[in-house]
C-alpha cells in the first residue's frame, strides 16, 4: 500500500501546524525515511518559507492537479536532506481550486514514491480542512494549552471522528513551563484529560523556533534546540519507537535559581 498519509491539523489557527509539519518532516528524513511535506493551505502558502524553499518553487499543487506539469516537476527537494521534499501550495488561487477527490488522487500518487506524506492543513473547519482530511490514513491534532485552542481542537477531533478518520493523536505545542509551574496554564495532563485522545508529543515554547523559521531551517535540524528535539522525538514515535516525553525545561534565569537556592523555603 506504500507510504503513510498523515494530516496535521487543528481547530484554531496559528497553533503551529506548519511548524510541526516542517519539523516532523525533517525528523523523519533524519531517520532515513523518504518524506514529502504537502502544503494544502491554498492561497496562504507558508510551508515553503518555514522549510526555506520559497525561492526554489517552479510549479505548485494546483499546477499538478490542473495538468500544467507532472507531479515530479512540482516537487522541491530540501537543501540539506536529500530524502525530504516539499509540494508547495498555490499562492494565487483559493481553496476551491482543488477538490477532495483530486487531493485523494494526488496523495495516492505520492504514496507510491514516499514513506511519509505529511499534509499541512489550513485552519478552520471548512473546505480546506476537509480536503486535507479526505486522504488521511492518520491524523495529528495540534493545539496550544489555552482555552480557545483546546475548545476548537475538540471540535476538530469531533469532525475527524465523524469522518471516521480517527482516532486522532495530539501534539500540545508552545507549553510555557514557568506558567505551568505557577499554576497559570493548563498542564499537559489537563489537556489530555479534556480532549481524551492519545498524546504523541509535547513541544515547549522556544525562541529557537522563531530564529529557525527566520532562517528557513527547521529547528529539528538544530541539535541544541529543545523544541527541535521534541519534534525529532515525535518523528521517532511515528516510526514506532518508544521515546519518553521530555521533562519541562526550567526557563528561570540564573539569578532566580540562585535566590531559590539561597532561600529554599520561599519556593
Amino acid at each position, binding site marked *: 500500500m506504500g507510504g503513510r498519509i498523515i494530516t496535521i491539523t487543528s481547530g484554531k489557527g496559528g497553533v503551529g501546524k506548519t511548524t510541526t509539519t516542517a519539523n516532523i518532516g525533517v525528523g523523519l528524513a533524519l531517520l532515513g525515511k523518504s518524506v514529502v511535506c504537502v502544503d494544502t493551505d491554498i492561497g496562504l502558502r507558508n510551508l515553503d518559507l518555514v522549510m526555506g524553499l520559497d525561492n526554489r518553487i517552479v510549479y505548485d499543487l494546483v499546477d499538478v492537479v490542473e495538468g500544467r506539469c507532472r507531479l515530479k516537476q512540482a516537487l522541491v527537494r530540501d537543501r540539506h536532506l536529500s530524502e525530504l521534499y516539499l509540494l508547495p501550495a498555490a499562492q494565487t488561487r483559493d481553496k476551491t481550486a482543488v477538490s477532495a477527490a483530486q487531493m485523494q488522487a494526488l496523495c495516492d500518487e505520492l504514496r507510491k514514491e514516499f514513506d511519509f506524506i505529511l499534509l499541512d492543513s489550513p485552519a478552520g473547519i471548512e473546505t480546506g480542512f476537509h480536503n486535507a482530511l479526505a486522504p488521511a490514513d492518520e491524523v495529528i491534532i495540534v493545539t496550544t494549552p489555552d482555552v480557545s485552542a483546546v475548545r476548537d481542537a475538540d471540535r476538530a477531533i469531533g469532525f475527524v471522528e465523524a469522518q471516521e478518520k480517527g482516532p486522532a493523536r495530539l501534539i500540545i505545542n508552545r507549553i510555557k513551563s514557568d506558567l505551568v509551574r505557577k499554576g*497559570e496554564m493548563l498542564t499537559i495532563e489537563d489537556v489530555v484529560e*479534556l480532549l481524551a485522545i492519545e498524546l504523541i508529543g509535547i513541544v515547549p515554547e522556544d525562541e529557537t523556533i522563531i530564529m529557525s523559521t527566520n532562517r528557513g531551517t527547521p529547528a529539528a535540524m538544530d541539535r541544541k534546540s529543545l523544541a527541535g528535539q521534541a519534534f525529532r522525538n515525535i518523528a521517532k514515535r511515528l516510526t514506532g519507537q518508544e521515546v519518553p516525553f521530555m521533562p519541562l525545561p526550567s526557563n528561570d534565569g540564573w539569578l532566580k535559581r540562585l535566590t531559590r537556592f539561597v532561600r529554599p523555603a520561599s519556593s
Partner: protein
Amino acid sequence: MGILDKLTGRREPSSRTVAKERLQLVLVQDRVQLSPHVLQALKDDLIDTISRYVDIDREAVEITISQNQRESWLVANIPLSRGRAGSRR
C-alpha cells in the same frame, strides 16, 4: 483578590483550575450540542411523559450528560413518588 480574602488568607483558585473547569462545561455542551435551555425543555417533556404512566417526584428528577473519554450519555434519575405508588390519575 479582595482585602477580606487577603485578611482571611483565602486564595483565589489558580487560573489553570478555572480554565479547566470552564472547559469541562463547554466541551460537554459542544460535543452533544445541547444547550442548557434545550436540556431543560427535554427534562420537562420527559417528566410530562413519564407522569402519564407513573407518579414521580417532579422536583427530584435529574437529567445529566455523562462522559467517558469521548463518548456521551444522557443519564436520567427519576425517583418515584412515595406512598401512592402505582395510583394513576
